[in-house]
């Protein structure tokens, strides 16, 4: 599937990246009807990649420090971000979806840029494990989230397979202490990333 490049102003108001160019599209035979794409942003992003890595649940992040390449397993596909501003992703439905996902990544990149590269909250998520999260959960093993135990929920949460909002007891007013525990552990940005929309 050869095609000419497609350039779009995806985030005109972006502080760092505004445009994305679709450079390559190849069919993805393993997933029928899906494509593998290479895109390029209008700015280098190497300085911000470590901060972007911290914006995702640790289970979906593979950060190659030596080469400063970030690979994310999100949206049911593998996405790689390179310092040059190139982005590759597989198992993509079509070009429109590729630009849509690129736009969401660009939002994160611009947010990292706005906060100076360190992120508004620079805690290292790789040091936070399921036991740490479990201590801040209700511990009732109620099963409302669909998991049999709070520990299973904590593990899936860090793998990006569960959302904090799915823990219904956390929404109760008397659970504020637990929510504060999570806020202290994860920070507000990561809480939002992990699917916390508030009470």
């Amino acid at each position, binding site marked *: 599937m050869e095609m000419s490049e497609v350039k779009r102003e995806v985030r005109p108001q972006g502080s760092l990246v505004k445009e994305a160019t679709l450079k*390559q599209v190849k069919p993805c035979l*393993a997933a029928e009807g899906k494509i593998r794409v290479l895109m390029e942003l209008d700015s280098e992003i190497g300085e911000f990649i470590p901060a972007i890595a911290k914006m995702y649940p640790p289970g979906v992040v593979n950060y190659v420090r030596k080469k400063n*390449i970030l690979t994310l397993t999100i949206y049911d596909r593998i996405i*790689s971000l*390179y310092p*040059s501003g190139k982005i590759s992703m597989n198992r993509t439905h079509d070009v429109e979806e590729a630009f849509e996902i690129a736009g969401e990544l660009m939002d994160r990149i611009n947010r990292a840029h706005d906060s100076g590269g360190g992120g508004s909250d620079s805690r290292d998520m790789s040091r936070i494990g399921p036991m740490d999260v479990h201590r801040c959960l209700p511990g009732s093993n109620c099963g409302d989230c669909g998991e049999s135990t709070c520990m299973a929920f904590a593990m899936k949460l860090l793998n990006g397979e569960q959302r904090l909002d799915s823990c219904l007891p956390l929404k109760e007013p008397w659970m504020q202490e637990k929510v504060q525990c999570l806020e202290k552990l994860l920070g507000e940005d990561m809480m939002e990333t992990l699917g916390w929309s508030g009470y």
Partner: protein
Amino acid sequence: MKSALVIIDRAPYGCENAFSGLYIVIACLNSSLDADVLLMEDGVYAAVADQVSGAIGYPNVEELTYLIFPEGSVFVHERSLKERGLEEDDLVEAAEVIDDTELYEIFRLKRDTSIMKI
């Protein structure tokens, strides 16, 4: 066969070997078969960054390497690279430079791998 390793030792654009080799690796990955590419001798030119292929009307080989990583590796033989006056900094970000010892280890560990020299 559990995986595939495609060896490319000819420069891109003068012949189709590099295109074909990289396409094979991408096709293997698309079929959920582990696959890597090893660039040796003049094949290392396929991993040089900032290739401008449009002027000669060929598709860009450099961009294909980004469709291989991270599911597959783009190995570049260090000695071949240096013999051509190139450094790691001259290569695409997805490239992984390997010395002779690492090359030996790759061959040793890939016993169930089908190795194809294009």
